[in-house]
């Protein structure tokens, strides 16, 4: 909302200009990055280990090989992941159960990193409805996922919206600190990341709903704040991984629905 105001101010009132610049940036790259996921869907599940690179390099992240990666749950089941390539490690036996707490342990270069995440109970995604917001003469489409938040507090969600199979980058996050136990009312703008290419009638819209563990929600919320142009002083998002690695380990539920824009 704040961004809408700012954008409008910049566009309408002032002669603002934007240009690419060169900056002499400090380089602290080479940090371990953990991108681990477990879902309520059938496995295998993946943990990706990479290293961060300097800002000026291309987005090619060196794979971390030779790590010992295990995931266990509170019942004592344990699975040692096998290396698949490109820094990806894959489970072999693990089956997920909503409500269980999963613990990730990564041992690499003599250092140990641990994290745990609770797989939330499943909240079904019932349907999608279409909405539109008028900005002057321009119509922006929006989609509203219909689901009923459970009465118990502490649920949070992330929605990934795709247009014709291409997902956009916006972090659409919801916490039940607002409208706990109610049918969702919030609609999300449908944006095509490919340089504001217009979204049109007949486009296929897919919404992927993730039910998140609270620390993971906090992680994404921090990421959303520093990604937006609100001017928040950026910092690494609070990670649920101990030991000083970047990234996060997320146990989340997944539900998907599609619709065609009318």
């Amino acid at each position: 909302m704040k961004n809408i105001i700012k954008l409008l101010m910049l566009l309408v009132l002032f002669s603002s200009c934007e240009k690419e610049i060169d900056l002499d940036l400090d380089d602290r790259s080479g940090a371990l990055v953990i991108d681990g996921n477990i879902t309520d869907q059938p496995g295998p599940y993946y943990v990706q280990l990479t290293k961060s690179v300097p800002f000026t390099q291309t987005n090619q992240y060196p794979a971390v090989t030779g790590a010992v990666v295990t995931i266990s749950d509170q019942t004592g089941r344990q699975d040692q992941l096998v290396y698949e390539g490109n820094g990806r490690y894959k489970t072999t036996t693990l089956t997920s159960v909503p409500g269980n707490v999963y613990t990730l342990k990564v041992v690499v270069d003599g250092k140990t990193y641990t994290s745990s995440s609770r797989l939330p109970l499943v909240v079904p995604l019932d349907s999608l409805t279409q909405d539109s917001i008028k900005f002057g003469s321009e119509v922006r489409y929006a989609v509203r996922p219909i689901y009923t938040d459970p009465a118990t507090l502490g649920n949070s969600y992330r929605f990934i919206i795709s247009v014709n199979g291409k997902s956009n980058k916006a972090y659409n996050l919801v916490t039940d600190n607002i409208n706990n136990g109610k049918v969702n009312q919030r609609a999300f703008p449908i944006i095509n990341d490919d340089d504001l290419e217009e979204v049109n009638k007949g486009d296929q819209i897919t919404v992927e709903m993730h039910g998140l563990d609270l620390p993971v929600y906090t992680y994404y919320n921090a990421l959303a704040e520093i990604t937006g142009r609100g001017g928040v002083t950026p910092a690494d998002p609070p990670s649920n991984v101990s030991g000083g690695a970047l990234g996060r380990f997320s146990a989340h539920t997944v539900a998907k629905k599609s619709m065609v824009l009318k």
Partner: protein
Amino acid sequence: MIGATVKIQNSTLAVSSNEYGFYSLLLPQGKHTVVVSYTGYNAVTLNIDIKANLKKDWELSTGQNLNEVVIASVRKDQNLSSPAMGTETLNIKAIEKLPVLFGEKDVLKTIQLLPGIKSTGEGSSGFSVRGGAADQNLILLDEAPVYNASHLLGFFSTFNSDALKDASIIKGNSPAQYGGRLSSVMDVKMKDGNNQSYHVNGGIGVISSRLSVEGPIQKDRSSFIVSGRRTYADLFLKLSEDFKDSKLYFYDLNAKANYQINESNRIYVSGYFGRDVLGFGDTFGTDWGNTTATVRWNSIINSQLFSNTSLIYSDYNYNINLKSGETDFGVNSKIRDWNLKQDFSYFANAKHSIRMGMQSIHHLLKPSTFTGTVSATFERQQRRSWENAVYVSDDYKASEALIFNVGARLSVFTVLGGGTYTIFNQGVPTDMVALDKGALGKTYANIEPRFTANYRASEMSSIKAGYARNVQYLHLLGNSTGGNPTDQWIASSYTIKPEIADQFSIGYSKNLNDNNYEINVEGYYKSMRNQIDFKNGAEIFAAADVESELLFGKGRAYGLELIAKKKSGKLTGWISYTLSKTERQINGINNSEWYNARQDKTHDISVVTTYELSRKWTLSGLFVYSTGNAVTYPTGKYEIDGQTVFQYSNRNADRLPAYHRMDLSATYEPKSNKRFQGSWTFGIYNIYGRENPYSINFEDNPDVPNTTRAMQVSLFKWVPNVTYNFKF
């Protein structure tokens, strides 16, 4: 009239009128010649013969042919003779000709050209004083606090110059009658209105138009002034097919009246109402604004005792409405004060003049609350609190050369009942306190000593030193750099402790060439406790209790300020330079280590000049340079979920490129013998088109896949303006 000089000819006896225009002078019986003077006005001389107490009111008229002075010193050598430290007074008449963005003369922007006062962003009316945050400035309009002094996201201030008499700013070493903010007091006074004849003045500019009417209600006894301003960018929007449903404007209304009951009593009533409105059809709408009202009673109890009683109301609120399909969603928030002040000035004798008084404020803070079909799971509670203070201070002339101002303020802040308070430690709830309505909760009491000393080392120079403690009980929560109208005020509570600052300063002033040139140097060290910041990834709107999202720490700021002024002649102006450092240490941020505050700018230079080319033409120019803001740049990047994420290291360890620009303006005042006078002002902001960074954003490069880039956003290259002003 504030700070007019009343002097006895051929003697050293002289006093300045106080902020209510009152003065008292003890004289031996006999014949004296009294000279009353005020910058920009003709001096008045009167011979008196004193046999008993004598009460004399003066009326000064504006001089026709006086040189314009840029900063009006109340007395030619005021900087040497007063113990006040870190204080600057701006005469609104004197700043009229300075170039400004869009031609909207703005006292909050002009003060940013003074040493120790820094802009928070391009074109912004927000400012930082000696390393303080924008909310650590007490901004008063006729004694009423203004909680959000900006329009249109800070590009304009709420102060319409046409309605203002003068403004002064005290950078931390304020006398004991002021309190409640750490860094500064910005005291803005509205015009009283002419009690002799009716006048209209106004202006037409590119952004807004203004109109003021003033005149007597009863000649000699009472007067009024009404002043209004409205922007009209939205009228242009209406012409565009795309934006014809859009709303985008703000307006201000200032009004003041005064009535003289009898020789010793006078009542003033003043008010301000301003609002910003922004919206698209019925899809989205937001509006915000301040309302203030002051009723003031000045009473001369006897020739030595003067009383001022004020009842003050202040309100700031905002509303946001979003409508899409069947969803109707709103957020609103409010802060409201009722404030009673009683102040006495007692002119005890030639050596002592005493100020004492009390202040009692009832605060109501309504945090952002959702309305419509969306509701918060946790209803955020309204908070009430009670802030009280008593103070006493003494202007003590120890000798002709040595003057002290010694004072103390006792401030007491009490949380009032009507809700449940959760106590947090580093965001983790540890306890709860339920308070019934009307019950008194957590109370903080602080003694705030204030001290300044002025030693007149020679006829033309003086040395000053000062110490002040300031305590702040209300805090503005905002995590963005620019400041948003939706930033919320929050009161001290069980979790949030009052902010406390101790400031030490020393100064040296020297005047040259019959006080025509003035040089002031001041150094300061300030330490701040209980500073507040959001934790990383804070939930500002959705958190059940926003206090769970806060972290606390301390701050320190130190610096050296220098200003050299030329006060008369065809060429007037000043050069100011500030060398400073400002740091914060917040537990939970930057590994709890010290880091540069965002407003830390090592060097800050302003050059301001006005040149009277001829009777008709006046040229004015300014140049500013400052070190870029302290910011945090990425130190690497990685990928999560297939999306690029930037890696960050030390907070605010990087710098935006340096900021500089030059503005010019020219004012044309054709000679007119008629009552009607018009003038034109032409100006250009940022004349050499410097692209100063407003923000730098890091993002995936859409043109070259698999790479990232840094994009700089700049505002305001060569913004011209033209304004027509008139009065009759």
